[in-house]
């Protein structure tokens, strides 16, 4: 497991989830001393510092940690602060918000001593939806979506087999594959729940094809 120290102690959920997706284990730190105390045996893979309301303190923590622990540092900054970064030192690379998880993965991979080897075939993508088939996690715009197992499996099947119409029976036998109390109406129920969890804007990804079944994409 590769550990990444993140500052401040309450990082944005988008950063945390992007790090998880990129295969890192994020550990929040409160400052330089804390980074030393919490340092895992194998050392930090890298340190990610969010430049928030207090850019000077954050940049100071970044450069000190980099120097004292000799670990690569990535800054996360708002676009408005790009100019400000020009004058600063003590970091190896930076990334602008909103964070693109793929970009974060690449940049961290380039500066880290020991980048995790993410097999990209483990990730299924559609627009801003990502399904990690290795860890069973789903994210939309980098935010995790809380799915039940069957909701996840149904979504995975639909994304893997996009743009094809599937009947309820086909979905039941391909996704559920066993006798279920609900019968084939179960499919409708799960599609409705998935749409609810995908949210209003994305609910239309799954279209109902009248008297046939469902299609994704």
């Amino acid at each position, binding site marked *: 497991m590769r550990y990444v120290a993140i500052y401040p102690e309450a990082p944005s959920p988008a950063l945390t989830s992007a790090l998880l997706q990129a295969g890192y284990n994020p550990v929040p730190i409160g400052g330089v001393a804390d980074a030393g105390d919490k340092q895992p045996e194998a050392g930090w893979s890298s340190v990610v510092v969010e430049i928030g309301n207090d850019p000077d303190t954050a940049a100071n923590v970044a450069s000190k940690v980099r120097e004292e622990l000799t670990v690569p540092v990535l800054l996360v900054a708002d676009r408005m602060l790009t100019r400000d970064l020009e004058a600063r030192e003590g970091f190896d690379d930076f990334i602008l918000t909103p964070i693109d998880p793929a970009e974060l993965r690449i940049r961290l991979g380039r500066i880290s001593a020991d980048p995790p080897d993410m097999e990209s075939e483990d990730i299924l993508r559609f627009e801003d939806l990502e399904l990690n088939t290795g860890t069973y996690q789903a994210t939309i715009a980098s935010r995790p979506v809380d799915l*039940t197992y069957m909701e996840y499996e149904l979504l995975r099947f639909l994304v893997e087999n996009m743009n094809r119409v599937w009947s309820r029976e086909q979905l039941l036998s391909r996704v559920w594959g066993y006798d279920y*109390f609900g019968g084939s109406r179960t499919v409708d129920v799960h599609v409705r*729940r998935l749409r609810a969890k995908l949210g209003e804007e994305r609910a239309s990804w799954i279209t109902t094809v009248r008297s046939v079944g469902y299609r994704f994409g």
Partner: protein
Amino acid sequence: MDRQKEYVLSTVKERGIRFIRLWFTDVQGFLKSFAITPAELEVALDEGVSFDGSAIDGFSRSHEADMLARPDPSTFQILPFTSGHAGVARMFCDIVTPEGDPFPGDPRWVLKQTLNRAAELGYSFYVAPEIEFFYFEDSSPATKVLDRGGYFDLTPLDVAQEYRRSTIVALEKLGIPVAFSHHEVSPSQHELGLRHTDALTMADTIMTTRLTVKEVAIEHGIYATFMPKPLEAVDGSGMHLHLSLFEGDENAFHDPDADLGLSKEARGFIAGLLTHASELTAVTNQWVNSYKRLVTGFDAPIFETWARNDQSALVRIPATKKGKIDSTRIEYRSPDPSCNPYLALSVILAAGLDGIEKDLDLPPQMGSDVLAMSSKERRDAGVRHIPRNLAEAIKAMESSDLMRETLGDHVFEWFLKNKKREWARYEQHVSRYELEEYLPVL
């Protein structure tokens, strides 16, 4: 490893879940929960977690105290309303004995058994509830309402709109689609209509919904209650249940050529419900207070009748939109939201199936006209009154073979014993009514 278990284990790890709450329901319908940490999860999924069942109402006697709660991984869900304490998920559990046999006092098992019987006949059972509840400032007997709004009222009378909205958002995050929600007839009373799903999932869903409504209320500093009749002068809270049977993809209740579009199965099911209505009322309306809702003058059924689109009948046939075959259904209107949903759905399904299997005759429709009849006319027409109080309901249940068979000896006997005790306590109680009416004059 089973993929479903793998999914749960992986999600717990990836999402930083720190506690997994294991949920089950006691015989009276109270949600019970205990938490385990991720370290114990794998063993819990494989073997179950032991707990002392003698402390749970309606579970074992002390000499068979050890029970195992076996989590159902298909119900794994991260909880959205633990703001500030992120990382909590839940699973519903089946209760088994240390030998691994299903525990007959587990309401979830009772429902599964009844659903198996339906499956043997080729049916799956679908349910959509309308859940009513009240918001009060707190849980004190002063019943301080939040508004004076009425049916469908919108702001500024409906101050609770925001609470309803957050409840729906939380429910949708839990994968519970809400069909509609609005202010109900009484002050401070609200309703959530849930979309239909299979009966087992729906019973779990009703438990989750009750908790969610209460949790969201707490977050807003108010109190939500499913008590059937908290305010004397206004309508109480019911839980109308929309029911249908499907044979594979086909709605077994629908027959385009039949009267009202109701198939032979639908007619048999209604006849079964009416035949056994009195016997099952103790389960669908289990508290002394439940019967204060089932009285004249309010939007609650009094007589065991059926009718098309008539609010006063016990079984109502809702109008369906043209061509909407799948939405042909029947609505059972007596249950209240404080019942045990597993047991209530079990006895309702068993009664309906009995009607289908025995091909019971459906009496003629009777709606609000029943209210105008004299009691002799009603007797002549064979119209029965819904049990008037818990004592009458207990009496009707006690002599019912169908109820014993459906609930199993364990639940049947424990339930009756418990309810008799409740009634005995109530009978001895000197109420506010008596003190106000009698003390000044006698």
